[in-house]
């Protein structure tokens, strides 16, 4: 590893930092509460959708109705996607004549996409027709991301409003996020990606025959449209089984850069949007700074491990593509696990144990380092609540956040957001490691086998979707347990946040005094980072010891299994 290998990450972060504030300004304009009336095709589209669905966007909802609407919407999407897969053999737009997907796998995939996880226990090119990919998965890619953004908007209203019992309109938040943000950005990205060689076609692939007589089917499909939203919406579910490592999903270093930028772009801009809408510019930079610090810390460990953890006789290119090389593959692996994206351009299971461990730890920390669209920031804000609470206990004051009192109910809800995924990961991995059906899924012996299991449950409960893909995740045991983890993890990430928003909206802001604990200082950033690392590290340290940590030690000694 040379100095040269640090420059690409630096350039990446610089581009992210430059693009985020302007995008945030746009987000404020189209999503902000007091936005000016909009004109143009997107406004027309927005109105058309409201009319078609019979929705009045001006109707305010209580937190309870907001949650009910979210659940109903997700429920319908989940059911429809399951049925669509189970009937695909009889439906049109199936040029390759793919068979119906059996129930456990169809349900697992439907949960996976409805919860913004995009865990894939199948290979897209041989399992799902273009109809299911577009009308099923593609739609959930948009709306699951938009649901995360909606919940963030509800939370912001909770912070801003005083003495109100409503948090906005779920339908309106969802539609605005899709129409004004995800759709136009996806269009732009999709066209740029096609320019790099990502395919976009509705016909079946031609069978190519070389002069020497060897045959190879060129798999075609509506890929660019899918890839654009899967990256921008922190979804991560590839059209092909190998995701963004496939040359048709990610053909050049530039397409790689674009896709990698798309992973963190919206989550990063949302931090600045939050700061502007709550009138707390400095607060935004504090949050962004903590996120950046954690990103760089993880990246440094992962890069150093990948380049240096063993002598030159370990060729680090297994599971990596020549057009990306080691640096870009590690940068992607860290980004995709900081966010709840889960797309990959290299196989995480073949990374050096420490680099794979960083990916796992990023997910275990709750994906709050920029994180998933909307939910990353709300997760980080839950850590802020806990930090305020702990700091308040230390100085003997009622904890406050931006003038709102943080009381027992807020802390309870925040703890649900933070601890439910942790419990799901540890209990799920513990169960799988102790029953034959779980152990049978391992593809590796030694600590790596346990890492495969641990990563799977972290990825599912954290709604990430990446994997140590050697694990046989298609078995009924993993299909059901991981689907349950994904569903519970998602509900725990979204619903308590809306409940907190409802409570906060009713509270009055108390004026700032000399005794107020400021949450936009370097000192608070330090406390926050500490809380994140302590909750994450202490909870998972024993489990990580059995997996990546011991494996890294043995790896350095040259021990093989």
């Amino acid at each position: 590893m040379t100095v040269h290998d640090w420059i690409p990450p630096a350039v990446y972060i610089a581009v992210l930092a430059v693009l985020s504030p302007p995008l945030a300004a746009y987000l404020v304009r189209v999503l902000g509460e007091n936005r000016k009336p909009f004109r143009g095709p997107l406004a027309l589209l927005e109105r058309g959708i409201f009319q078609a669905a019979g929705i009045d966007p001006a109707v305010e909802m209580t937190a309870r109705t907001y949650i009910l609407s979210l659940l109903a919407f997700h429920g319908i999407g989940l059911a429809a996607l399951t049925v669509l897969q189970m009937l695909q053999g009889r439906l049109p737009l199936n040029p390759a004549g793919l068979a119906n997907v059996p129930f456990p796998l169809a349900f697992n995939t439907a949960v996976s996409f409805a919860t913004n996880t995009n865990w894939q226990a199948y290979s897209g090119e041989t399992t799902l027709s273009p109809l299911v990919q577009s009308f099923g998965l593609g739609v959930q890619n948009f709306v699951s991301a938009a649901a995360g953004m909606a919940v963030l908007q509800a939370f912001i209203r909770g912070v801003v409003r005083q003495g109100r019992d409503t948090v906005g309109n779920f339908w309106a938040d969802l539609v605005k996020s899709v129409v004004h943000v995800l759709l136009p950005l996806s269009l732009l990205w999709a066209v740029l990606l096609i320019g790099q060689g990502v395919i976009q076609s509705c016909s079946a692939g031609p069978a190519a025959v070389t002069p020497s007589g060897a045959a190879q089917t060129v798999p075609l499909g509506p890929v660019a449209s899918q890839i654009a939203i899967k990256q921008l919406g922190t979804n991560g579910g590839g059209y092909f089984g190998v995701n963004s490592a496939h040359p048709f999903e990610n053909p050049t270093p530039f397409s790689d850069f674009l896709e990698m930028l798309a992973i963190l772009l919206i989550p990063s801009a949302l931090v600045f949007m939050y700061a502007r809408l709550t009138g707390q510019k400095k607060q935004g930079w504090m949050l962004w700074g903590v996120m950046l610090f954690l990103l760089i810390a993880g990246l440094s460990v992962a890069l150093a491990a990948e380049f240096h953890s063993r002598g030159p006789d370990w060729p680090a290119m297994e599971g990596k593509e020549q057009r990306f090389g080691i640096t870009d593959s590690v940068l992607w692996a860290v980004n995709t696990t900081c966010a709840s994206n889960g797309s990959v351009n290299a196989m995480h299971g073949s990374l050096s144990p420490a680099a794979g461990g960083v990916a796992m730890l990023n997910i275990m920390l709750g994906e709050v380092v920029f994180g998933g669209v909307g939910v990353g920031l709300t997760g980080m804000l839950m850590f802020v609540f806990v930090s305020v609470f702990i700091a308040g206990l230390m100085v003997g004051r009622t904890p406050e956040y931006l003038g709102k009192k943080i009381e027992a109910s807020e802390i309870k809800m925040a703890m649900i957001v933070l601890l439910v995924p942790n419990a799901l990961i540890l209990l799920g991995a513990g169960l799988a490691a102790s029953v034959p059906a779980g152990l049978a899924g391992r593809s590796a012996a030694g600590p790596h086998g346990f890492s495969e299991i641990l990563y799977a449950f972290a990825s599912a409960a954290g709604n990430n979707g990446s994997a140590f893909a050697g694990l046989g995740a298609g078995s009924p045991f993993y299909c059901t347990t991981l689907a349950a983890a994904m569903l519970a993890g998602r509900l725990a990430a979204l619903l308590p946040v809306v409940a907190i928003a409802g409570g906060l909206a009713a509270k009055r802001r108390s004026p700032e005094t000399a005794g107020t604990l400021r949450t936009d200082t370097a000192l608070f950033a330090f406390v926050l980072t500490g809380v994140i690392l302590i909750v994450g590290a202490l909870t998972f340290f024993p489990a990580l010891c059995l997996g990546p940590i011991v494996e890294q030690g043995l790896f350095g000694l040259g021990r093989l299994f």
Partner: protein
Amino acid sequence: MKVRSVWLKAFGLWAALTLLCGGAYPLLVTVVGRLLFPEKAGGSLLRSGEKVVGSSLLARAPAGPGYFRPRPSACSWSTLPSGASNAAPTGAALTDSVRIRRARFQTENEPADGAEVPAEMLCASASGLDPHISVESARLQAGRVARERGLDEKTGAGLQKLIEDRTEPRLWGLFGLPRVNVTLMNFMLDTIPEFRNFHQEDGHDARPDPAEK
């Protein structure tokens, strides 16, 4: 709000967004892609006359000693489905594969003493379809390819020149690795007249049978 009306609205919105995001959006991207980048949207196909012989973005199974060898593939260069080994870094299986691949590369190409076999030729790619290899391994293979095709010294030098010309650089000098596209190189070996074995044109393969060596 009544629960029933919530379900109705949820259904209406799901239907509307399905048409928009699942129907209109991919269709629009397809149309724009077709108009702006028809070749690329269609899979960057390589054609010999009317016949499709492959895609320049996908590796093909090794075609013989007279062609460049692509990176190892865990899915045997199949596209349905593509796949990686997901081999554990501490797995004995990976170490064994690396040893076998190193020996094969050295036997095939007889690199000069002490020349290290480039890492990407020892490792299966992430997609199993990686069309690229490093410039070093293209150079190391060029001698064998020229010999097997019976190219004279001048044409062999031309092949080395072709590798230089076809080297794809890093993006902005930073991202990715310098690389040579094996699928394209092999396509050119078949289509550029000076690199074709002269006897191939009348249907005979003049390459020596490996079994005779």
